[in-house]
């Protein structure tokens, strides 16, 4: 017996699936084109943006200072009885993002390879400490003292990160 039944079972499958896919594409496509017609004029003048958050430090030294400034603020926000809320959540988010920019800003500086790697290693330690004390899965209470030695480590690198002429 040839596998007729096997084939006939799928007889309607291709047509139904094609119809479904075309419907999906048509619906999404129509939405897109309608939207694009509407915004056509705006798009012509739309600025092609690379989003740079306002709290992004300008350079490596600035990053170190930002971290040093923000740790006491986090301490205040983490005190029992502190209001917390959106402000604290934003501060935490920004602090975490600043830590994440360590490799990029260290690379965008005069730091040599060994110092860059030291900065990245310290950044990784900061990530770990952040996760332990401030992250959603925190296992320890926040203590500014655990961050400070790491920020001191980074601060030692700050002079080397500046442009050659500024170092002199």
């Amino acid at each position, binding site marked *: 017996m040839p596998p007729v039944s096997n084939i006939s079972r799928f007889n309607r499958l291709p047509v139904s699936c094609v119809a479904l896919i075309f419907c999906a594409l048509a619906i999404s496509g129509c939405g897109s084109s309608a939207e694009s017609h509407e915004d056509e004029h705006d798009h012509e003048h739309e600025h092609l943006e690379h989003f740079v958050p306002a709290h992004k430090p300008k350079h490596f030294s600035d990053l170190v200072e930002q971290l040093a400034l923000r740790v006491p603020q986090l301490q205040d926000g983490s005190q029992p009885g502190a209001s917390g809320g959106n402000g604290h959540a934003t501060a935490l988010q920004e602090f975490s993002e600043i830590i994440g920019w360590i*490799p990029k800003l260290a690379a*965008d500086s005069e730091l040599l390879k060994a110092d860059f790697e030291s900065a990245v290693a310290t950044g990784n330690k900061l990530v770990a400490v952040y996760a332990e004390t401030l992250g959603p899965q925190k296992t320890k209470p926040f203590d500014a003292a655990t961050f400070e030695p790491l920020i001191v480590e980074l601060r030692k690198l700050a002079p080397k990160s500046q442009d050659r002429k500024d170092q002199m």
Partner: protein
Amino acid sequence: MAEMMFWGFATRFLVSLIQASPFILVGFAVAAVLRRFFGYEETRKLFGEGTRSALFRAWVIGMLLPVCSLGAIPVIREMRRAGIRGGTILAFAMSGPLFNPLSLLYGLTLSEPIAILSFAACSLVIVTIVGLIWDRMFPDSALPIVEEKAVAYGYRRMLAVGTAAAREATSASLFYILLGLAGVGLLGAFIPANSLQHTFNHDNPLAPLYMTGMAIPVYATPMLAMSQLGMMFQHANSIGAAFVLLVLGAGMNLGIMAWLYREYGFKRGTTWMVLLLSIVLGLAYGVDQPLFPKDIEPANHTHAFDIYCQPFSGPLTTSYFEATKLKLQRDINPFEWRPLWMFGLLILSGVVLKVADRSSTLERWLEAAPAKQISGRGDIVVPGPILGLLSLAGLVVLSVVGCFAYYPAPDECLEAMTDARVGALSAALSLDHTETKYWAERYDDWTRKLEVGAWLRKRELSDYHRWKARLLREQLEILEHEVEEGEREEVTKLIAKISRSQARLRRAFTEEL
């Protein structure tokens, strides 16, 4: 308007044809090797026909051979003649064009190289699942096995490969190849310039779906697809859309689709397409979030698809013919024309054979086996399949060796970068956007070659070096935008910044490697 569309079609068609030519030539060579060195029986064995490993073998062979989705067409037609099942053929057709050694290495310069490895693994999942289901639904998809005549050994065997390639180049393969190129031409005719810059942003949940609609007529060489992926990662666009672009943009084209429907009919062809699109879309949405680059600030646009839109926008100062000529002169390197002439020569040979030898007398003579003339103990007749395997392995080795030429040593890259840097920065100073874009793209390309060239020679590349190159690329991208906006003050600052980054890059790759 109609004139702009015509020249848009012509430009995109020609550029794609020129870029595709080396891969198409490889495709014809592979098809001829399968025909004359392997023969149908050995070709079936090579692809594991009838065994459980058939799909995996097709995927591996596809991954190793340097073909594109157009170059795959003569190969899949040869596989079909050899009596291989549809699932295996289509597995090769889908995986062959995705990667080759050059493009895989280029992928290493992406912000998330793991994404490329994941994409490769996903492509195996796709061809295996689609192939298994399709073969199960249509177990009788292979053509009946036919007897074939072996070719005589010696120079006749070599000549037979050449004639097979030439005849194939004037067969239906050429029609499917031109159809594939027409797809990208039509996009260039109808899609307004730069109109796809915002369609594939990371926050657009429909981006993979839009890409599915667009990627089939798109034709991209493995290298082009990889560089587009690079741009999408650099802009943190939709990763799902990037995946669809790789699988369908590089792996599919209108020619393959037409072949699929022609060979297997509407129902089987549609079933394949439905299975493929469903699985590709499912995987695209699956990888969209996990592979999203975490250390990149997302941009609200991408330039990866500018090359599929109309190449001309706004009023031109010259005729469209002149503008097209100028664009081709700028976009195509002189050495890139040679494979096109070789492809033309192959077609011409095929035409001559068709006209002068309609009854295939030449083939009959080639197939007439002479008596074995062994002159001594060391004189042996090498079996065709061994020669075939050596030829295919030679192609793979050649493409690996070619990596060292394509990705020169860091010193050479830094030297070659000078022209591009001077061109980009001086164009930026005069706020000439077209020139800045042109040179910045070349500068960007050299930073990637620098990374891969260093990795190839040292077998490692630190994050320090990768960051130096990546920063420079990011700054070039911003420079291009600032020039477009005419922000002179920002441009001046960026030029100083890029010069500093270049000095640091040079130091990193010459003194700290």
